[in-house]
């Protein structure tokens, strides 16, 4: 009987570990940073009524940071960061998700300067990101 219980407990632990592994493997950008290991400074952006609530974000230059997106509606959104030059090269593209929920994006370090943040689905949702 005890053997059976031990086997069941082992199975439950294995299933929990497998589920945790699946969640983490989906996308590193979607994993909330643990309390003991913040991924650099964090800036928060909220999306509601197919608009970002902030038109300007300030982030430190040359440092990886965490971009927190609070999607407050069922409409899917993401945050992408584009260079502000003629080519508008995309430097970062966060995973698209429907709300209401919050996701954490791990953004690589940006050189000092101005960039554009935009929702890849709704190009009218845009703003200025200043790394300095």
């Amino acid at each position, binding site marked *: 009987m005890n053997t059976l219980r031990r086997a069941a407990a082992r199975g439950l632990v294995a299933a929990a570990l497998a589920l945790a592994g699946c969640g983490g493997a989906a996308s590193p950008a979607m994993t909330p940073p643990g309390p003991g290991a913040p991924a650099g400074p964090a800036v928060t952006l909220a999306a509601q009524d197919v608009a970002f609530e902030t038109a300007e974000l300030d982030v430190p230059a040359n440092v990886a940071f965490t971009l927190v997106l609070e999607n407050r509606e069922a409409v899917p959104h*993401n945050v992408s960061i584009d260079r502000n030059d003629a080519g508008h090269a995309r430097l970062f593209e966060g*995973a698209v998700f429907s709300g209401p929920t919050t996701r954490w994006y791990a953004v690589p370090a940006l050189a000092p300067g101005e960039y554009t943040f935009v929702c890849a*689905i709704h190009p*009218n949702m845009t703003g200025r990101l200043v790394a300095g």
Partner: protein
Amino acid sequence: MVTLRPTSPAGLILRAAIVVLALATGWIHFTLGGLLFSLNAAGYVVAAAAMVAPIGLAVRFRWLIRLGLVAYAAIAIVAWYVMGPRYDMAYVAKAIEVALIALLLVEARVYDGSPLRRLRRTVRPAARA
């Protein structure tokens, strides 16, 4: 060999599939919010209705509605390819649109033949009048 006519079982299934696919991609676009996606969704709903509406004008110009819907779905696919985001639901919507175009082309080929010939047949009686 299945005979494809508008009132045969195969013809009805084909038409129903076209309507369902048009409404499905319309619904996906509707859930994306914003004016552009809502208008796109409305376009699919109107086209789906026009595909089955038993109104004389819709029946007479169904060949044109078919071609219009093919062009509409093709433009949606190209627009997404050029500037759309790559994520799971977008791929589903595009797969639906590709299937929709394929079924519409089957209908057009069986019922309408050459679009140019169809256009000539439609224009000639009007020119004589």
